């Protein structure tokens, strides 16, 4: 008995289903970017607060550490009964995981700023806000970018777990490909996921280079 061909790679699949594939890719991308944006917006004030009030640093890092230990599958399950199935649930889960990585890296970045530098700026009469944005933040940027890269890559991978609540972007294609034993569909979605992670990672590397022009000069010197 000849089994029907079920190749892992098929351009034919991509051509026939481009509309659906591109739609899920778009969902995957926007979900990732949105989650990262929200996570940054929450992580930054939290990290600054943890830096300013050392007593808060322990609880902030501790709570986000516990959050991180909770499996994504369970977190989506915890949220689904209250936020329903769909985009919101996945988004909240993604933000929660990106948050820990970002908070940790921003705190570490701010802590590693040379004390002499901040003292000098203070001596020059920098107010706390100006000190934060013009001295501490630029110096912490390499660590922040490193955290962003980790958060971006793991968020792309995590979106796929959203299939649990029916909103997994490219994960949706993987899952359906599995149910209908359609290998090309699984492989295409997998490769697109990897490509998306790679593109985001490269974009962040470039962004980091443009945002910290002085590091290149230092490396060359």
């Amino acid at each position: 008995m000849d089994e029907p061909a079920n190749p892992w790679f098929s351009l034919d699949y991509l051509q026939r289903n481009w509309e659906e594939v591109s739609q899920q890719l778009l969902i995957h991308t926007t979900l990732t970017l949105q989650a990262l944006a929200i996570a940054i917006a929450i992580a930054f004030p939290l990290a600054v607060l943890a830096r300013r009030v050392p007593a808060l640093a322990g609880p902030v890092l501790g709570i986000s550490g516990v959050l991180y230990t909770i499996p994504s599958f369970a977190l989506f399950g915890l949220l689904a009964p209250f936020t329903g199935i769909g985009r919101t649930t996945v988004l909240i889960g993604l933000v929660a995981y990106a948050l820990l990585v970002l908070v940790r890296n921003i705190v570490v970045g701010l802590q590693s700023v040379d004390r002499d530098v901040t003292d000098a700026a203070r001596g020059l009469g920098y107010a706390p806000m100006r000190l934060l944005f013009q001295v501490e933040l630029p110096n912490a940027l390499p660590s922040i970018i490193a955290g962003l890269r980790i958060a971006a890559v793991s968020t792309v991978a995590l979106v796929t777990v959203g299939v649990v609540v029916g909103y997994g972007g490219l994960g949706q294609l993987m899952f359906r490909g599995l149910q209908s034993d359609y290998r090309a569909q699984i492989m295409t979605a997998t490769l697109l996921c990897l490509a998306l992670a790679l593109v985001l990672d490269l974009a962040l590397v470039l962004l980091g280079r443009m945002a910290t022009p002085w590091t290149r000069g230092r490396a060359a010197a």
Partner: protein
Amino acid sequence: MSTVGDAWAYLTNPESWTGANGITTPTFDGGWRFAQDSIIGLTLEHLWMSFAAVSIAVIVALPLGVWLGHRRRGGGVTVVISNLTRAIPTLALLTLFAASAIGFGNQAVILAAAIFAFPPILSNTFTGMAEVDPDVREAALGQGLTRFQVATRVELPLAVPLIAAGLRTATVQTVATVPLAALVAGGGLGVIINRGLATQRYGEVLAGAILVAALALITDAVMARLQRAVTPAPLREAAAASA
């Protein structure tokens, strides 16, 4: 009834723990498997799958890490491996394995989880071995120990705290990955969440999520104690900083 009330009712019903017909069920070929309607059965299955996955990862990663770390070569490779596996969605590997010759069910999950457990063990073993004080190595070699003896009797014991930290990361991550088995017809506690979503019984979804989260947190606590136990007291502070 409210979702929380449903979850409470599910968790306090003895039958959800023991299953309607015990914690194992016979299979058609005369064997047995864990009953999929018993929390105890699913928990045992969950732990067994996690143990199998971590064991496979340790068997491969530990000797490799010891060897590479002793030679102080391949540091770049271990970094690339751990970065690459972070980008691979767990679901992708699971579905790829399930659709391949490996087939549906627990084998696909164990293998996929083992692959994700591999990088933390490898990179921590490598770092632990490679960062042993060169003077200590030289002294051991000077006393006439063979390279193999230096690796297993001098460097490996010194690397144990870091290896334990890697093992903790790998184990907690595996316990968190195994719930995805429910999506490829495997077992483990994820089954409760998946079944609840499919039947729109959100109380059970919540109960399953609480169970999975609790198992992950307990595993982390147990592994933290283990890590502490194998770390000599003077090294504890350094180990805590690197964990």
